[in-house]
């Protein structure tokens, strides 16, 4: 006797709806599971957009066909189903794109500078352009107030903090005190909190207890 093979939950009874929304739902699932962002998938986005256009054309055709009567529910039902599916695809697609935009912005606030290469690899070309233009907007805004906004994420507790330097950073000017600092791996020093706050965020320095 042939034993029944285990079938996954998405069985054939859901096939008709999946036909239209499969890619859109997959995109959303990927974005939900990713730590930051999944790699860009321009082919899937293209498929979703083509389906949106296809649905729109079909609805349009029905409305332009002979005998279409806009007042009859039976006439209107066809285009309405197409438009509702189209609306769902549009919501999914735009939510996916918007989620990616928001995470790119969050990363820009976190890193406060150029995006790391491994993150950039996940972005499509347009998104890299988006990241750059958003960066320009932020710089312009900060210049209007002459204030760096990517500092002081935590309320200040002490002027000075005792830290361990985990990686060699080299010479730089402390943004808070304006002094030249030179940090090498293994240093234990007391520094102005405002000077090294961004380095703590990046994990290059840690508080020592």
């Amino acid at each position: 006797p042939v034993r029944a093979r285990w079938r996954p939950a998405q069985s054939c009874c859901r096939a008709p709806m999946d036909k239209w929304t499969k890619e859109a739902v997959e995109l959303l699932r990927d974005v939900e599971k990713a730590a930051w962002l999944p790699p860009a998938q321009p082919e899937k986005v293209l498929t979703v957009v083509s389906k949106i256009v296809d649905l729109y054309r079909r609805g349009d055709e029905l409305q332009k066909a002979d005998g279409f009567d806009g007042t009859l529910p039976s006439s209107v039902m066809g285009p309405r189903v197409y438009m509702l599916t189209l609306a769902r695809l549009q919501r999914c697609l735009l939510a996916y794109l918007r989620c990616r935009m928001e995470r790119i912005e969050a990363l820009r606030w976190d890193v406060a500078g150029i995006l790391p290469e491994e993150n950039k690899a996940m972005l499509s070309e347009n998104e890299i352009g988006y990241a750059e233009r958003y960066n320009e907007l932020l710089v312009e805004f900060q210049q209007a107030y002459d204030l760096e906004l990517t500092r002081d994420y935590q309320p200040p507790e002490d002027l000075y903090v005792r830290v361990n330097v985990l990686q060699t950073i080299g010479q730089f000017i402390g943004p808070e005190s304006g002094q030249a600092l030179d940090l090498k791996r293994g240093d234990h020093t007391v520094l102005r909190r405002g000077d090294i706050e961004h380095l703590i965020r990046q994990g290059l320095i840690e508080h020592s207890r």
Partner: protein
Amino acid sequence: EACARPVFDAARSGCGMEEPSSSGTAASPNDYHALQTAWINERHAPDLLPHQDDLLGRIKEAISKQEARIEELGDGEGIARSLYEMELERVNFQFRNYLRTRLEKISRMAIWASQQAEAEAAANPEAAPSLLSPAEANFLRKYLSLYQDHIDAEAWDKVAGGREELPSGIRQISAVPSLVIVPDMSSHVFCRALRSCEPFTLPNSTQVLKLSEGDIVLLPYQPVRHLLLNGSIQLT
């Protein structure tokens, strides 16, 4: 917080510190508290409050004067320097957090914010805009066009003729209800009454509320918004 009076205060009452020339600063102790109040209100309010560019300008001046004062301090005045610097850090933190909070609201609810700004401009064409500062209005305008351009490039232009064929009701971000994030005006906020307020009613209720000075209450935001705007209450 309560123990150390802000040095803006102490400098005026002359608690013994050498005060170099210009103590006629544009900012006063009131401005320090005004910044703090504005910051806390902005943090707790679900919608965007009117901008405070004048106050921020004065605070910015006071910050540079404070920095100049710090430079002028001699080596022997370590404690005074620490006090000045700590206060400066606190003011800077509030300033930055205030601007960041507003910017985050503008970015998240960009479409709604621009609708509010347009409605305000339509209602009072003569008056200067009170909701968004010029820098914020500039940011919002460019951010929205960046948003729309990005969606166009990433989605609608992928298909040949997509932009021509699909109607703007599908392509425009402002026409998509799921993208228009609005603040939750019915969310509850803790309010502290700074003075006696005129009576008002809550929606869907005939109960009349009258707040007297010092009352702390938890109320939905929408009915008390006018009190917040005229300074009768403070969010906390």
